[in-house]
């Protein structure tokens, strides 16, 4: 496996991304970035199957528009990792800021700990191959999965008494599903979101996601493979249809 190591100390994001692109063009299969400290847009619009290990804390929009690569972050991430991402994977060994997986249309974002506000907002899907997945090990702040049009958001609430305690879950959701470990209080749901029973067949469907998440963070999946979840989806696929009348 061809590995390229880049020391990003003091480097601006544009030359850093140029080096990453050059390495990918040169056939690198693994890229290790050391001393990352707030550089934005890492892997922005990047194609291919390269695996990028990020040692440090990347800045905003990690993996934006990314199509294919895998980024492993050994640290926290700033806001909006996986923004409008197409395919590939982000694995963050820490927490991330607001708008994680914003408008994401495919691929996976795994966050070990917590995320900020508006996680998974406006995630969408198209057919089976483009179905984005966001898994949060800890908890998320308000407006999780707002305007969601497709895909899966899974919150495990590890180490928390309740996985979700912030409001506005799934406001305006019109596609996809939000699955939260344990019970979710009704008042936390946003307008247009509805709770559904979490069944054995749901578990069967999401257990590969749980197993994959646990594998990345060295957790025992057995702990999560039961039906103690709440599934939240759209009350209607046309949440705004009843608001309007024509002239």
């Amino acid at each position, binding site marked *: 496996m061809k590995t390229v190591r880049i020391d990003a100390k003091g480097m601006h994001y544009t030359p850093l991304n*140029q080096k990453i692109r050059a390495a990918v063009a040169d056939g690198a299969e693994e890229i290790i970035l050391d001393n990352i400290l707030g550089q934005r*847009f890492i892997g922005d619009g990047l194609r291919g199957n390269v695996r990028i290990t990020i040692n440090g804390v990347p800045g905003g929009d990690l993996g934006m528009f990314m199509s294919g690569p895998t980024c492993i972050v050994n640290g926290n991430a700033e806001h909006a990792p996986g923004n409008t991402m197409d395919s590939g994977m982000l694995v963050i060994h820490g927490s991330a800021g607001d708008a994680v997986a914003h*408008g994401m249309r495919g691929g996976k974002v795994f966050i070990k700990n917590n995320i900020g506000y508006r996680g998974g907002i406006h995630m969408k899907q198209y057919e089976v191959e483009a179905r984005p997945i966001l898994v949060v090990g800890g908890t998320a702040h308000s407006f999780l999965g707002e305007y969601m*049009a497709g895909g899966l958001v899974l919150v495990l609430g590890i180490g928390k008494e309740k996985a979700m305690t912030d409001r506005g879950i799934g406001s*305006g959701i019109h596609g996809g599903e939000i699955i939260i470990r344990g019970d979710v209080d009704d008042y936390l749901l946003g307008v247009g979101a509805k709770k559904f029973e979490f069944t054995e067949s749901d578990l069967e469907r999401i257990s590969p996601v749980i197993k994959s998440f646990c594998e990345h963070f060295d957790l025992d999946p057995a702990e999560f493979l039961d039906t103690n979840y709440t599934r939240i989806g759209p009350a209607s696929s046309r949440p705004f249809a009843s608001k309007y009348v024509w002239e």
Partner: protein
Amino acid sequence: MTLGSVPPKFKVTIDRDECMDCGRCIENCSYGVYRREGDRILIESRKCTACLRCVSMCPRDAITLTEKPVDYRSHPLWTREAREDIINQARSGKIILSGMGNARDLPVIYDRLLLDACQVTNPSIDPLREPMELRTYIGKKPSKLKFRKTESGDVELDTKLAPNLKLDTPIMIGHMSFGAISLNSQLSMAKAVAETGTFMGTGEGGLHKELYPYQDHMIVQVASGRFGVNIDYLERGAAIEIKIGQGAKPGIGGHLPGEKVNEEVSKTRMIPLGSDAISPAPHHDIYSIEDLVQLIRSLKEATEWKKPVFVKIAAVHNVAPIAAGIARSSADAVVIDGFRGGTGAAPKVFRDHVGIPIEAAIASVDQKLRDQGVRNEISIIASGGIRSSADLAKSIALGADAVYVGTAALVALGCRVCGNCYRNLCPWGIATQRPDLVSRLDPEAGAAQVSNLIHGWTLELSELMGAAGINSIESLRGNRDRLRGYMLDEGMLKILDVLPAGA
């Protein structure tokens, strides 16, 4: 208590002496006004939208259409519209949606601005004989140029220039998405802009593969729904436009109803078949001007700084400081969309009451950017209700670099501004996805009509400039001395920085 029906908006009659009973009106009307019963064509006027398809297709000019055949008791305040909106909402309790641009009878500033011409003291220029420079570059310009001398003594440019769009004429076609309008409409306009050396916007509907041959003339849009946006889409566009707001509905998002999301639309937008395509009011990754900078740079970084990035905002009260913020945000152009801008569908109260006139917005944005010394670094594109080459010339004289036209291009394709775009029944094959209706619009013929319009306006602009003794569009830009206000109040003249007629 029943509210009863409101009077029909139009009355359609057939002159039975002229009618040859060919039935083209029946075939052409997608709203179902006409039907045949026995040997007679019957008319249901209430269904008429005044799209004029039947009138245009009747071989004998036998159809007459009258607006408001039954009227209410006249009243200056309680207009027909006011009363009917109340009746509609008393029935439904909902938000009223409407199509096309602002339909209120408010004064048009363009119509109260007059252009200048030369007499005696300086000669006018004949564009037939003299070259007229209409070429316009849209994008960031350096504040200064640095040169260096090579060893051989040549002088070379040292400043790195940002990518610009090269327009042969300062007329572009604004963003109307595939979904809102048909593929044949987009194809017609794409062929026309490629032929006339200008550009058009994709709207937030992705880029259909049939448009790929024209991608060098397409500005791809990134709006809050991020429909159809991926790296391939961004790389195909000649430029990228971030849509923050739209003149027809400032401050709110857009909903493409599921009925219009057919297989092709679903594929191009990358959303499931038949699902509503909802664009939220804000971009949820932009909650501040700093976040806008981040989105602009993320788009530039994704496309390796090869594409200009525009930011489109609706003309609202504080448009000038907002545009100034955008000018400093690494955007290459700011697009301002005035309150008369069109739309497939918008809440009527927004369409008719929110935002400010584009004329005032151009003037105040241009002034603010000049005051801050950055006007030369960013382009201004104006849109929203530009109907003619006169509006175009006046927009440039007020300070715009170029304009976007939307409705005007649709009218060139057959649109009669009936305002029923949202019904998916457009009999002209424009605002519809119904295959039998879409096929009425031939992209070749449509392209010829749109490019004729662009040619016509370009010729007129050259003539207007020549008459004013101006041979380069750059000398017209922001040249408010070549405008005079007629029946405009002092406050407006001040905002426009234009003298009154006679001064």
